[in-house]
């Protein structure tokens, strides 16, 4: 037995309405239970945290505000001042030469025969290539549930410069 077209569309919207009501009742029933049993007791604290964060972002973005004393280039809280490249001198524990702290890492890399620049000179190129591309593999055993660590790295620094900070004054609006 076939029905005329209008009856079909009426029927289908009726069925849809039923399904929708059913789902709404599901959600209402579950939320009701959660509230009555006190399973959401942290709601207020969470909302407060969110409010504080929102407020903080507004205040920080406001250029008139300097909650952060950009003392990096002047004086730190202990009253000290530092050069942008650390100048403390000490002995390299590998070769014994005196090195300035801010240049220690690049020196040590060459000194120990590691790293990209040093490795290019090494004739055992196959092992060097392996080392280069297997970075991070020894580390993945500790977070088996996450993606391979080598694909989620935030790097830092540009060679030769001891960490210049981007003044990240803009905040991405979602």
């Amino acid at each position: 037995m076939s029905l005329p077209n209008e009856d079909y569309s009426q029927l289908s919207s009726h069925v849809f309405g039923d399904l929708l009501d059913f789902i709404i009742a599901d959600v209402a029933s579950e939320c009701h239970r959660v509230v009555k049993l006190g399973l959401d007791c942290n709601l207020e604290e969470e909302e407060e945290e969110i409010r504080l964060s929102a407020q903080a972002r507004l205040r920080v973005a406001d250029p008139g505000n300097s909650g952060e004393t950009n003392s990096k280039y002047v004086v730190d809280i202990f009253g000290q001042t530092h050069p942008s490249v650390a100048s403390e001198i000490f002995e390299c524990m590998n070769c014994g030469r005196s090195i300035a702290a801010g240049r220690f890492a690049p020196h040590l890399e060459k000194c120990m025969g590691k790293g990209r620049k040093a490795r290019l000179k090494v004739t055992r190129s196959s092992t060097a290539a392996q080392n280069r591309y297997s970075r991070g593999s020894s580390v993945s055993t500790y977070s088996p549930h996450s993606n391979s660590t080598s694909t989620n790295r935030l790097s830092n620094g540009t060679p030769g410069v001891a960490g210049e900070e981007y003044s990240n004054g803009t905040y991405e609006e979602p």
Partner: protein
Amino acid sequence: MCERNSLYTNPKPCKHLADYKLRRGFNGYDSLQNCLKTTPNGRTRVDKHNTKIPRCSFCNGSQGRLYICLVCSSISCSSHILFHTQSEKGHEVAIDMERSELYCCLCRDQVYDPDFDKVVVSKQVKDLPGGKSNGFEACRERSSKRKRIDSGIGLDLKKSKLLISMRDRRAKSCYPLGLRGLNNLGSTCFMNSVLQALLHAPPLRNYFLSDRHNSVQCRKRSGEKVCLLCDIDALYSAMFSGDRAPYSPAQLLYSWWQHSSNLASYEEQDAHEFFISVLDGIHEKESKMLNSCKDDVDCQCIAHRAFSGLLRSDVRCISCGFTSTTYDPCVDISLNLDTSNLSPSDVANKPIKPTDEKTGVSTLSGCLNLFTRAEKLGSDQKLHCQNCQELRDSSKQMSIRRLPLVLCLHIKRVEHSLVRKMSRKIDQYLQFPFSLDMTPYLSSSITRSRFGNRIFTFEHENSNGCAEYEIFSVIAHSGMLESGHYVTYLRLKNQWYKCDDAWVSEVDEEIVRASECYMLFYVQKPLYYKANEDLSCVRISPRRDPFLSTAGCSSNAK
């Protein structure tokens, strides 16, 4: 203490429910138990007649909500349920047939009774595919004789207090001990930022300041020239000595490169990678010293005692509901950013979260919800279901079986585009709280929600100890993927400090809240408060001697 005695406020029954129970006891519940049927996705309904569609006895309708009377089993729809109560005295409590929830017809509201929930859950468990233990805390897990680790570490504090107070006099100013800059040795801010966080992780701090790793004995015993633990110990001594000139962790860099030779390069490095690598180094060395070959779950090395937790993964067959469970240890949790701001969190299975749609901002709880959400695996990832004996679509759900003392949350800020074969950094702001309650993400909570949040004590509840955490450190990254900068914010005695390599400054908490976090470090509340007590701050008199440097405390020459 922060352990709640029960996770529920046991709801008081309404007058009518209480009356019903007095008169009828459990008869109604028990007789109904056999009619309860649970679907593979966890819905429990009342199914009295297998074949007939239930219909309202008044209007014969079968749509909308249907209720079955607990006393006489007659069925009414929501429009006519009141008629039934009025026509039959004492028939005041009914059950929503599709959801197996108690309904009081006179209060016109859903009501709750632990005894009823117990009946429901017992039936659910009985009907679980594959046998009783399925989906439940399986017996294969060892009974945890977890001693209270924190008390073990706490005992050490008395000794460490002694060490600190002896050096107090040399503190340059009235600032907490341990606050000191770290020199950048050439693109090593990734290392400095993690070290600052580790330096102030209470269990690690207490361990090393209590001289638990004795360098003298270590060198004698192992005869090795390089020991990562000795260098970390030296770092702690230097940083907590009271000397405020920036320290150069050169020796540590050297030993770390010896340990992780594949990471030994002065190029771009990732702080999280370094974090994992350092913990691994500590574990390796301590295991050698303790001569233990215990697996991560029970390892007693300080890295694991502080950071190790246990994750649970449930894979569930969509067809029959059979669940297989595995446990994996972890030292941190890597979270994907909750970028789908417009989709509400999975309300059905979680307590109501503040609506993210209102603010449109990614939140840490959103990320944690995402992490513990039941995810349907693609149809190309069908798994073999033991119950169905064939390949089936499944869903996977993560939860936390055991929380660590120190919780490190790593935010994955890299996005890969397969199309363009490029990666880019996600700069999106992430809201994170200073106080964090991890209860909703525990395996006990997730399991409970899968059984409809019924009032029922599942096994292994509250064996985690404290689920409430306080933040003590934030590592923030600014800049681009291949070149950027790390800084660490430290929270000491409720004051925030920014550690930007050699530069230490005081900052408002707002700066921290608004920062672009990459790694968050939380510690269990009791440890946090205890740690704050121990951070002594000494006022210096104007006639104090000028600062004298002490061997091993300032310069790095060895």
